[in-house]
């Protein structure tokens, strides 16, 4: 576990048994293996799942399908977890109790968890560091409009609705479908749906932004 992080981590640890976290985690794994509570291979597989298979692309596909298929959209609003599973994404941890909230020309939705860091893993993967930060958790409920400006989203006087994930319900924002996308396929539409647009801290890409991004990638 010599990842370098353990040597220059400048945190101030005041709590009881404090060596560096990397050493403690290493000892903990060894102990739990000896106790028969942990199977190292199972850990590898789980880590791989969250690094490779579960991420915001899942959510983007859900949104793109809902944009293009009114029947699916209806199912998604009736029972989100089930409709998400239809696309091959099992509910898994932090995805069993889902609700999709829709942005409209008049209402913008934003998701936060002020008490910890609840986040819809099954559709967005694990949360980014900023989502878990004290700054985000403190300000999202108190000054959402100002917070969104920091993310480059100017709501004007649009109504803003902040969802504080205080229960086991997990919220996914369905952004508005960008203008000028009538001719795009579901797959192309999914490319427009950013992770932040599904948290509410961003908007989907426009077709022009998508084209620029794909040219840059080449």
């Amino acid at each position, binding site marked *: 576990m010599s990842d*370098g*992080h353990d040597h220059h981590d400048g*945190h*101030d640890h*005041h*709590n009881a*048994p404090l060596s560096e*976290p*990397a050493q403690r*985690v*290493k*000892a*903990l794994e060894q*102990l*739990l293996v*000896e*106790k*028969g*509570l*942990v*199977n190292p291979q*199972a850990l590898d597989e*789980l*880590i791989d799942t*969250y*690094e490779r298979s579960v*991420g915001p692309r899942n959510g983007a596909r859900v949104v793109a399908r809902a944009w293009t298929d009114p029947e699916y959209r209806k199912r998604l609003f009736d029972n989100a977890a089930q409709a998400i599973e239809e696309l091959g994404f099992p509910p898994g*941890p932090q995805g*069993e*109790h889902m609700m999709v909230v*829709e942005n*409209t020309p*008049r*209402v913008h939705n934003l998701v936060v968890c*002020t*008490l*910890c860091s609840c986040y819809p893993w099954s559709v967005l*993967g*694990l949360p980014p*560091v900023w989502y878990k*930060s*004290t*700054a*985000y958790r*403190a300000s999202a*409920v*108190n000054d*959402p*409009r100002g917070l969104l400006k920091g*993310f480059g989203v100017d709501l004007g006087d649009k*109504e*803003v*609705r*902040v969802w*504080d*994930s*205080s*229960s*086991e*319900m997990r919220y996914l924002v369905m952004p508005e479908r960008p203008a000028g996308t009538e001719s795009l396929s579901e797959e192309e539409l999914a490319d427009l749906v950013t992770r932040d647009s599904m948290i509410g801290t961003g908007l989907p890409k426009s077709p022009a932004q998508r084209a620029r991004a794909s040219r840059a990638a080449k």
Partner: protein
Amino acid sequence: MNGVHDLGGMHGFGPVIREPNEPVFHSEWEKRMFAMTLTAMGRRVCNVDEFRRAIERMPPAGYLATSYYEKWLYAVESLLVEKGVATREEIASGHAAAPVSAKATGSLDAGGGRVESFDNSAVKLRFNKSFKPGFRVGDRVVARNLNPEHHTRLPRYARGKRGVIRYDQGVFVFPDTHAHGQGTKPQHVYTVAFEARELWGADHDQRAQVYVDCWEAYLERARIAAKPAVKSAAKTAGKAVSKTKTSPAKFAAKGHAAKPAAKSTSRSRAAVKKGRKR
């Protein structure tokens, strides 16, 4: 618990800082910590409410100074000791002095790579059984002014504030007891809409609301009209206020009473949109 984890509305944490490339994990130990917590703890050692409580028990300065997965590490170490799965000495040495007792963890199974979580653990968090709801969509409620020392999921900023029930999310385990081995006490969870001005004061954003999920025990009926007519709520609210001393006129006057109740408890977005005063 009025802990430092309850951050909503606090000032002074600065702007939100975003990393340039946002890796899923930042080091090897974060990966191991994440996976151990999901597998070992979730199925065998604790439930998700106990886990959250264990994080909240961190001394405040430590809570603010540590990273996300360091908090998990702290919680896991303390829960292993608390539950009698390991001793402090074993945790420090990384070696088992004694096998884990079946009593401490229930029946063991190696896991075989299945993704399991707290939510899939022995206790289901949502119940299919139908419990009679105490409130209906459209009801005006007040979040109780509760300040328990134990774990709770009612954020401080909502306590004592008035809101409207927007959704009934079904019946869930009650974290306040579930975090302390005091049973599941299943009850309805409601999504309650609070106006930003109700939460933060009259000079606040007039076009912002915060939706908070509240267990039934967190709520009481707002004492305005006993049963205001759905369509004329805005008109009657004024009269209702004059009848009761406990309802500040401000509440009725600033739009809280102006929202007709949605007709059903379904999650119909259309009903909510129509019901919202612009």
